[in-house]
């Protein structure tokens, strides 16, 4: 029956989109092998590589500020996470429940931070590599945004004003709500992840902890939020959106197998 549903949908998908989906699914499967929940020695969490040089996001984010944020903060969270995961592994082997419970709070913080920062670096890009460029108006993502928000300017202004108002340390998000299939604005505090807030898939992450802007902007968070749109990589946001809807349609990793089977059946 599921196959019939897919068959109904199938003819509407262009070959280009199918290829994109296959690549995305394959990469999603490959990525999942890096994440060992116990953090074994051979598979430690690592700082993700940036797709750009440390000075590439200037003048929005200076080389100094990016260096400190990436090489000191994010690296620090990753190092701490690896230590904690090793301790968790030992505690689980020893069945030390008190220790496990204690560790989980710190893991939530450092692990959440690793997840959030990894998304943040990836959804920024130097202007010469497409940063700040809105998606193509014919794309499904562009159309979804305009259908829901009117236009990108309205969306950007909304995120900016809400993110300015986040009290203390936190993150501003665009996320895909799985039940309603809407693109929603969300906030998390501290290093909470977007998935902790519900059935949400992160599309765009903006760090509003003071360390994300203090060196360049001091207390002027509104200025940071005004400038950051020049380096937001909407292509990456779009890619996450496509992945989200396709994941929903085809139960993620199994999609590749479904596609192969259906192709073989029809031929």
């Amino acid at each position, binding site marked *: 029956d599921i196959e019939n549903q897919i068959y109904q949908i199938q003819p509407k998908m262009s070959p280009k989109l199918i290829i994109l989906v296959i690549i995305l699914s394959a990469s999603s499967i490959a990525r999942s092998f890096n994440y060992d929940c116990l953090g074994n020695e051979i598979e430690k969490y690592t700082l993700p590589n940036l797709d750009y040089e440390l000075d590439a996001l200037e003048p929005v984010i200076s080389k100094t500020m990016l260096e400190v944020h990436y090489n000191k903060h994010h690296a620090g969270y990753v190092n701490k996470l690896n230590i904690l995961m090793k301790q968790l592994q030992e505690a689980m082997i020893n069945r030390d429940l008190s220790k496990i419970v204690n560790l989980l709070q710190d893991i939530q913080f450092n692990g959440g931070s690793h997840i959030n920062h990894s998304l943040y670096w990836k959804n920024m890009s130097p202007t010469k590599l497409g940063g700040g460029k809105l998606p193509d108006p014919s794309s499904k993502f562009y159309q979804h945004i305009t259908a829901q928000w009117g236009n990108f300017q309205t969306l950007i202004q909304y995120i900016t004003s809400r993110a300015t108002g986040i009290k203390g*340390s936190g993150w501003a998000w665009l996320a895909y709500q799985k039940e309603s299939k809407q693109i929603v604005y969300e906030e998390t505090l501290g290093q909470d992840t977007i998935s902790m807030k519900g059935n949400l898939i992160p599309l765009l992450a903006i760090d509003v902890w003071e360390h994300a802007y203090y060196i360049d902007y001091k207390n002027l968070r509104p200025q940071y939020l005004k400038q950051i749109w020049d380096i937001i990589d909407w292509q990456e946001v779009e890619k996450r959106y496509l992945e989200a809807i396709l994941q929903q349609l085809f139960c993620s990793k199994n999609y590749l197998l479904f596609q192969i089977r259906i192709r073989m059946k029809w031929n």
Partner: protein
Amino acid sequence: PMATTGFHELPELPYGYASLEPFMDEATMVVHHDKHHAGYTRNFNAALTAIQAAGGEGAKICTMSPENILRQLNTLPITPEQRTPLRNHGGGYWNHGMFWSVMAPPKERQEHPTGHLSTAMANTFGSLDAFKKEFSKVGAGVFGSGWAWLVAEGPQENPTLKVVSTANQDSPFTVGQFPLLVVDVWEHAYYLRYQNRRPDFLEAWWQLVNWKTVDDRYKEYTGKN
């Protein structure tokens, strides 16, 4: 532009911007006081102005001291929308004022607690060093933005001393505690010189603590001289 005077004034720093060097840099003091604290002052005054304009029961809180506003925060005759800015900006206004007052230029400060406070601290924490270790640990452990405090709680004649932390601009007054010592661990308090090294900041900060203020506050709480 909203005033840093009005119901409450932005207090002047009790020392020069550069006098806390090398432990706290001049640039941080300038931005922290003239921008952050000033901002909280303005927003606190604006919130009170709005409450006064709205009239009714709520208006009389405009003559209350910030401490009392924070003490009675959850029972004031105001709406939740009126309460939130008092919590954030009233808290920010008062917390920063206390923060300046517990510090002094390294060579001008009183370096240890004395008298009754000293006894109480020895009884509670064992030693001053043990206390500092606990306090620094709590300060370093605050997730995100907040404050670490030494507070007094309970009966005047025999208070309990505790090390606690609060998030964002929350005040111990609101939960019935009396602040004796405080450190700001929002990133803006240390970022320019220490970046992510909050533990290093806390270690340096001890060189600035003026225990005279803490002694005086303990005397205020216990009524004992």
